[in-house]
């Protein structure tokens, strides 16, 4: 049985409901990431933010990026952040002040940035396509033709960058040698 075009009794389309739900989850959990007191919960809320964003990428028709988001961000970066939290956690951390003394100016500045960007981006005539439902999926083949065509050099540079980051991460995480420890 096909679904009705709009949600019964509410009258908004399924795509809109999905966008509003995922967008609400993204904004709410991102707010908890920056405002929450317990840093482990901030890390878990970051995972929720990234997962809901992967859902929005699917709504946008970019399923390959949603897959990369789940693999790289949720699978690798979030786990790395949680490990780093566990390695640097001290018992008194949650009782200490979480925010800098400049928290209020920072809130004003970032609210200004957000409002300015939202108004400017929302009011510009972009000449963009308007779809009835969600955007048509561009397809992974189109994206691959772009990534391995005009963007090939950037792709190769990114792989060199990741190699450098891996070597740098290993070097920084190594225990310092005895001679360096005496100097320090």
């Amino acid at each position, binding site marked *: 049985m096909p679904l009705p075009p709009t949600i019964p009794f509410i009258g908004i389309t399924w795509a809109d409901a999905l966008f509003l739900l995922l967008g609400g989850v993204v*904004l709410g959990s991102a707010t908890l990431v920056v405002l929450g007191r317990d840093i482990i919960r901030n890390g878990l809320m970051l995972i929720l933010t990234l997962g809901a964003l992967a859902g929005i990428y699917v709504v946008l028709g970019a399923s390959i990026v949603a897959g990369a988001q789940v693999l790289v961000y949720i699978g690798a970066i979030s786990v790395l952040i949680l490990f780093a939290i566990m390695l640097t956690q001290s018992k008194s951390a949650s009782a200490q002040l979480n925010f800098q003394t400049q928290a209020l100016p920072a809130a004003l500045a970032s609210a200004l940035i957000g409002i300015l960007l939202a108004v400017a981006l929302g009011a510009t005539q972009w000449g963009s396509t308007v779809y009835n439902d969600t955007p048509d999926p561009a397809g992974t083949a189109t994206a691959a033709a772009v990534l391995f065509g005009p963007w090939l050099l950037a792709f190769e540079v990114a792989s060199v960058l990741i190699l450098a980051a891996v070597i740098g991460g290993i070097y920084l995480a190594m225990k310092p040698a005895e001679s360096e420890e005496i100097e320090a």
Partner: protein
Amino acid sequence: MIAGHLEPYLVLSSLLFSIGAFGFLARRNAISMLMSIEVMLNAVNLAALAFGAFMPTLAGQGVAFALLIIAVAAAEATVGLAIVIAIYRNRKTPLVDEYDAMRQ
């Protein structure tokens, strides 16, 4: 009617970016600041993908851009967290306002 327009995605992206900017400016913990950077990078990703999906001349470009940003974010998180752990080993605190060796 909302999900088929470009502007809602851009507004969501800018709100997410401002949340991340606030976290980066206001938090004391270095790892919280790195998490806020991840939030900001994701906001940029969302804007790039929205442009790629809605502008006919940019078809496919948004996906390529977003994949490269994800790769750079992975490298940044690796090095950033390694630096935080290395500093923590010396100073025994993850709070950035206590890293004041060059001020004294």
